């Protein structure tokens, strides 16, 4: 690339000045502006919808929409969990392991209560409480490591992922935990209010609560501040460590909600679930436009990213594409989304240049 022109060659350096991109307004210019203003995700989403509708007539139906929403609500909630940690400037590879741990713990508690003669409603109440506490506890372990002992988030959550999975497998011996009250599945897996499945309501509630927390409260603002610049946050009297810890505990709580929904749908407690959740959730958040550098993105970005992942997974299932391909597609889309995002900020800069 580097080239040395010497000897008084008559090059005109002014020619090297790139013309302002904003003034070339053709189809390409309009497309560029659209891309800059909405990002890659809506475009990818439209492509996915068109492709899958043409591949399978069952894809674009109300029925599929309902089952799809019901099935992927839990993933969406785990995406929210990943998102809150990403905003604080960390990330969480243990969301899958926490899901498994919560599933096993809550199922064991419920089966145990039921076997001990409790009523199904008591068993469910105990199970849900145990599940939520397990999630919060697991989040607190991450919080302690990353927030207070300042262990690198990657290492810490990689380590806890291994520990949590190990615990879940040890407790169950690798076997599904059965004997749950059927009412649990009916209530959290398959019931509906006003025609909309309960898991969807719960996911929407989780998204709204997180949105309110991040937007309207001081801890929420602290999470953005620490993710954006921990040094500046510290000088403004905010403890980066404690804020990061809060993000991990919130994340653990959200994961446990998602894990309870999944357990209800599966009707058993499983130690083998959630292995692909770290990749799925980080992919969803990044595709949705959440920056890995921390401090940016909003709940809507995360939700849209989750919807995209859901559409791709569901569409490929219906089109009877082998699930191995699903992994390939997901990986490729993740890489493409990151490149597209960089392209977008560069395009945005050049459009800005053209305007001045």
């Amino acid at each position, binding site marked *: *690339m*580097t*080239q*040395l*022109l*010497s*000897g*008084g*060659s008559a*090059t005109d*350096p*002014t020619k*090297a*000045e790139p013309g302002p991109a904003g003034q070339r307004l053709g189809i390409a210019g309009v497309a560029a502006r659209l891309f800059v203003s909405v990002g890659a995700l809506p475009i990818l989403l439209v492509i996915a919808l068109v492709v899958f509708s043409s591949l399978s007539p069952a894809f674009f139906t109300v029925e599929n929409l309902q089952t799809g929403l019901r099935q992927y609500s839990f993933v969406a909630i785990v995406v929210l969990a990943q998102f809150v940690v990403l905003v604080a400037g960390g990330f969480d590879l243990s969301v899958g392991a926490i899901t498994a741990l919560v599933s096993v713990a809550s199922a064991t508690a419920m089966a145990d209560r039921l076997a001990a003669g409790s009523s199904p409603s008591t068993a469910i109440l105990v199970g849900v409480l145990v599940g939520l506490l397990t999630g919060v506890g697991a989040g607190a372990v991450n919080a302690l490591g990353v927030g207070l002992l300042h262990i690198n988030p990657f290492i810490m959550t990689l380590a806890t992922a291994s520990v949590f999975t190990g615990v879940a497998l040890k407790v169950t011996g690798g076997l599904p935990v059965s004997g749950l009250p059927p009412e649990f599945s009916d209530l959290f897996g398959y019931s509906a209010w006003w025609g909309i499945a309960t898991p969807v309501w719960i996911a929407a509630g989780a998204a709204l609560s997180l949105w309110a927390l991040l*937007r*309207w*409260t*001081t*801890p*929420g*603002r*602290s999470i*953005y*501040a620490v993710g*954006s*610049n921990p*040094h*500046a*946050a*510290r*000088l*403004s*009297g*905010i403890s980066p460590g404690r804020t990061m810890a809060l993000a991990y505990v919130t994340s653990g709580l959200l994961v446990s909600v998602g894990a309870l929904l999944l357990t209800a749908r599966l009707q058993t407690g499983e130690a083998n679930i959630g292995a692909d959740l770290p990749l799925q959730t980080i992919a969803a958040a990044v595709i949705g436009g959440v*920056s890995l*550098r921390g*401090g*940016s993105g909003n709940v809507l970005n995360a939700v849209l990213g989750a919807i995209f992942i859901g559409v791709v997974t569901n569409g490929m299932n219906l089109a009877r594409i082998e699930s191995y391909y699903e992994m390939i597609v997901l990986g490729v889309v993740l890489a493409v989304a990151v490149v597209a995002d960089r392209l977008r900020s560069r395009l945005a800069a050049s459009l*800005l*240049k053209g305007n*001045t």
Partner: protein
Amino acid sequence: MSRNESVLEMSGITKKYPGVVALDSVDFDLRPGETHVLFGENGAGKSTLISIMSGASAAGSGTMRVDGVEVVLHGVADARKCGVSAVFQEFSLAETLSVAENLVLGEQPSRLGIVNRAAAEKLARARLAEFGFDIRLDAVVASLTRAEQQMVEIAKAYRADLKVLILDEPTASLNDSECGQLYAVVDDLKTRGVGIVYVTHRMSEIERLADRITVLRDGRYVTTVDGSTPADELIRLMTGRQMEQIYPALPTAGVVPVLSAVGLTTQDQAVREASFEVRSGEIVGFAGLMGSGKSHAARACAGIERLESGSIQLDGQEIAGSSIAKCLSKRVVYLPPDRKVEGLLLNRPLRESVSLPWLRHLSTWRLFVGRRRERAVVADLLRKMKLSPPNPERSAESYSGGNQQKALLSRALMADCSALILDEPTVGVDVGARVAIYQRITEMAEEGAAVLLVSSDLPEVLHLCHRVYVFSQGRITAHLEGGAIEEEQILQHMMHWDDKESKV
């Protein structure tokens, strides 16, 4: 005479960035064996000019000649081939590698991709020996002092065919004896016929080193003068204004001490046994070189540094050992020197950077942020500060240095602060914004705040302070008041080197 022939000649150099003209048809020439100082305020275009010279960025238009031959540089490697090397403030060393590895980086003697270690070490040793630097070849760069790293950097830049060496504020983070070592290297290079482009703000350094001085202002070439030009003349050329036009009249200081420290020693020993006080309505300057402890002493007052001993009182109440949050709640506000590193939430709306320390105070039950009130208060403050563009919802990183500093200052204005501690408030700030910032600082003093101004900018200390404490090696070496605040006095005490101390 060959000495008058230019080794480097730049003419009509123009560089535009979106919305700003960084350089407007600037001329510059350099003779072999001379030290040519580039002088100008932050934002005057010095950095842009040297980055073009060194091939790090391309000029929009204009020509550059090395030894009379026109060159077009497409990168730093090109410049080096022409015999032009630069040592920037941010070093280009690989911190985790050894000195030897760094010295031969990119040109290791090798065969079939396998490095000939013996030959590499010999080459590295020769490069260090060139200037008689006493640095261990196997030392890891991260373990060296700034001065040693700089020497490695210079040794790396030096080639037998070196014609031009660009030094960008090389003494910014060096202590006095280290500065002396650097000056010796500069003298040595001059006798070898190397032309040196030297960027500095320090008057003492200009006096010591400069053969000629080129002054830039607002991206334009002002003039080139002889190295013996007096300091006040240089400042007039640099700012284009008389001092009075930049610095507002000082308000009358009160007599009640607001902030006072006695026998302050920080845990890292950056400050030792420092005692000072700031009265209400008073602007007190902390002068000193980088690493003299002036900034640490100021930070200690805001709860940022850990203390070993000493007492700090605010309005008669002990605040030593208080947390940053506690100090903020007592309205002790500290504005950091590096806005990007410690001040701003770069990728967030500028509004959030302004309100950050006061979020709890803007909230109901310390929990729910009053967003409407926040927006209104911040927008109002930034309007008064004449922020441009006047939109607090734009991301902080999209603003210029001056506007970013205005935003930080608004942070202090947001609360009725009792003590305002400013650490290098005008680094990277253009003259226009500087005048506005000085105006605000004096206004806050007038309203009764105790203002502590930490600054490496000597004119600022000379003209904006009621009293000045001079720091050297962690101790206060002088306390100057009124008419005694003179440049020479300050410089002398800044360079104060206590021999007894270094033996302890």
